[in-house]
């Protein structure tokens, strides 16, 4: 596990607060790293950044939300910052990369070590198209203590931090705490009260974080004009609209529930859901159907 990746070792540079390239917002926090190791384009860290974090184990909904936030930020020229952990973090990066947006991964280990190792491909893409950032020297292995420390950098780089899904003792809550100490905006995605992955986010909202109800809100709050984005005007047939309407009012349904409520045949519903998914209106995971827009 976690052996340095040779092809990345040669591309590591450093930056200190004495240099101009040091991330602007990061200078303002009370304990900025004395040195940053990076791979990629360091100027990204001084652009407008928004971080999105969440638990490593996430629900399909959480992953979708993370992916969509990544996309939304990417489409609007905002740099998406996250920690490249499994689950929510990875999907934030993936969403941004998908729309050719810029993204920063802040690591809790040396910049040439891939952790978790399954993210190798993602890490290489971020190194090529975005920025890998760490306060740890090359070859330093991740430990229990490095991750909470790196969270201050994630929030420190960003004007706002979004907590997508977090359990009660999640590291994402530490990031949110650091963000509020640093005087940055904190958003949380509200969730069902019986969803154990939503407890952390809901608690943040109770404690004063802004609930993120529409993804565009965040762009308005940081004063960015919304880009037209991907407003596809796909034409829907009558049956498709009827089923989409039902999914929208229910939030989260199964094919069976659609069949029962609308008195339709399972085969027919399956086909229509596939088409809706292809057109990007819904997405499905583990037998459940969610609204995507």
């Amino acid at each position, binding site marked *: 596990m976690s052996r340095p990746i040779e092809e990345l070792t040669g591309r590591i540079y450093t930056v200190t607060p004495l240099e101009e390239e040091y991330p602007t917002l990061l200078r303002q926090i009370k304990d900025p790293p004395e040195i940053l190791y990076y791979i990629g384009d360091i100027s990204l860290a001084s652009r407008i950044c928004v971080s999105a974090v969440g638990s*490593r*184990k*996430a*629900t*399909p*909904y959480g*992953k*979708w939300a993370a992916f969509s936030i990544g996309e939304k930020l990417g489409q609007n020229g905002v740099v998406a910052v996250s920690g490249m952990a*499994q689950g929510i973090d990875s999907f934030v990066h993936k969403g941004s990369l998908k729309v050719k947006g810029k993204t920063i991964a802040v690591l809790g280990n040396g910049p040439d070590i891939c952790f*978790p190792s*399954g993210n190798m491909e993602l890490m290489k893409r971020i190194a090529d198209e975005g920025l890998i950032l760490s306060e740890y020297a090359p070859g330093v292995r991740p430990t229990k203590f490095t991750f909470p420390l790196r969270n201050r950098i994630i929030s420190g780089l960003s004007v706002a931090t979004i907590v997508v899904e977090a*359990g009660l003792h999640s590291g994402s809550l530490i990031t949110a705490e650091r963000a509020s100490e640093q005087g940055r905006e904190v958003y949380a995605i509200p*969730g*069902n009260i*019986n*969803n*154990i*992955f*939503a407890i952390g986010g809901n608690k943040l909202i109770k404690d004063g974080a802004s609930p993120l109800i529409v993804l565009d809100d965040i762009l308005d709050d940081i004063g960015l004009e919304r880009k037209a984005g991907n407003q596809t005007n796909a034409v829907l047939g009558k049956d498709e609209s009827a089923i989409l309407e039902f999914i929208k009012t229910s939030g989260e349904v*199964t*094919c*069976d529930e659609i*069949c*029962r409520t609308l008195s339709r045949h*399972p*085969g*027919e*519903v*399956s*086909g*229509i*859901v*596939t*088409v809706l*998914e*292809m057109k*990007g209106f819904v997405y*499905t*995971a*583990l*037998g*459940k159907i969610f609204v995507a827009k």
Partner: protein
Amino acid sequence: MISKINTATLTGLESDIVTVETCLTNQLPGISITGLASQTIQESRERVRVAIAASGFKFPNKKVTINLAPAWSRKEGSHFDLPMAIGILAASGEMKEQQYADYAFIGELSLDGSINPVAGALPLVIGLRDVGMKKIILPKGNAEEASIVRDVTLYAADSLKQSIGLLQGAESTPYKSCTEYRYGSPDGINGLYEDVVGQESAKRAITIGVAGGHGLFMMGFPGSGKTMLAQRIPSIMPELTYEEMLEATKVYSVAGELSNKRPMITQRPFRTPHHTISAAALLGGGGIPKPGEISLAHHGVLFLDEFPEFSRQVLEMLRQPLEERKINIARAAHKVTFPSNIMLVAASNPCKCGFYGDDRHQCTCTPAQLNHYRSKISGPILDRIDLQIEIPPVRYKELLEEDGIPGKSSASMREAVNKARKLQRERYINEGISLNSELNAAQLRKYCPLDTYCKALLREGIEKLGLSARAFSKVVKVARTIADIDEAASIRTQHIAEAMRYRSLDKYYRNF
């Protein structure tokens, strides 16, 4: 004097006639057996000697030489006891040649002279019939299973004494089957689909799978009803034909799995091996190869619950028999072929602990466990499975029961299956196949032409839904089956769209 008695030997499911030649000579008394006889047959000299004495006959005070002809083939099984005993008694002048020459004998002797049932009686009887034997004496315990064979007269014998009596002209009636062919009778079927609350979409997918002979993979949280759904699959499969019943019963006969309670296989088999199963037990094997679970499920369902928990090596070995619908087992002494025309049904949790992605429970798996679990499922074996569905938990079961809308019944699902199968049989009458799942690439092009809309939809689906390129032909085959269920002549876009819904794992592993 030399006597020649007819019996048979078994290699896999095939049987060949064997002549038991017995010669008595004036030497020191003893028995020697030649003709590549196995340990069991070598031991039978003791059983035969005692059983003859116990039945009230005199064991000849001479040197007994027994040869099992042809002498070059290996022979195995305890059913040589009876023919050997008859041979010794015939050679010692107890009977005349014309009394036993028309008969063939199968049976294991007890020391007290009674006859025990043997494994593999059915294929032995079939083999004897095929070489022209008309009358067969066999153990009473095997008579029922063998009575399925036509054009042969069976005599069920309790004891050596009784069978000698029969040959010497005592009154005897041929065995008559007491089993009606119980087509469609509910015994042996593990419940009906009426009992499954909700899960109509899954039932739809299962109907498609059975109609087109497609393999099925179900993923869902613990308790969502995967096992319940799988167990009921035989209840919607077409009834076994006579030929199929014969083939299935043969396998069970050789495996020694028939009993008085179940003398023949009249229902589609449903086998659920535990995930700790070894390769030999699943595929068949042993020094003298015996059929494994995959052959015991012939013409029925092989259900692999907790699919990723099976050893990878075992799963990989399923590939060839799934493709060829038979399995060749080669051992040092034997090379046999067992049939394995099965519907493969696999089920899995989303992860080891079962709650990955569930918003009501915390998943306790480590990332390494998650990866390990997935790598098992995403292996090449999945390529052999056309339908992959997700089973959502039924959250509001009580509500569903309350509103009283009945679910689809096994009978109506079976009707759809039968209709679709008939269409397929008629369409492929000249191709030597009978199901959509058996289409090869050339046949797929010939019988499943797609119009431009379907092609466009398929291309878009593969791109947008993240389906693998391999999914292409599977989606078309499944779409063909859906069209058959709808009784549509050609594949239309709604069939393609529905078929793509059944590739959920492709997406699961690519995106989430």
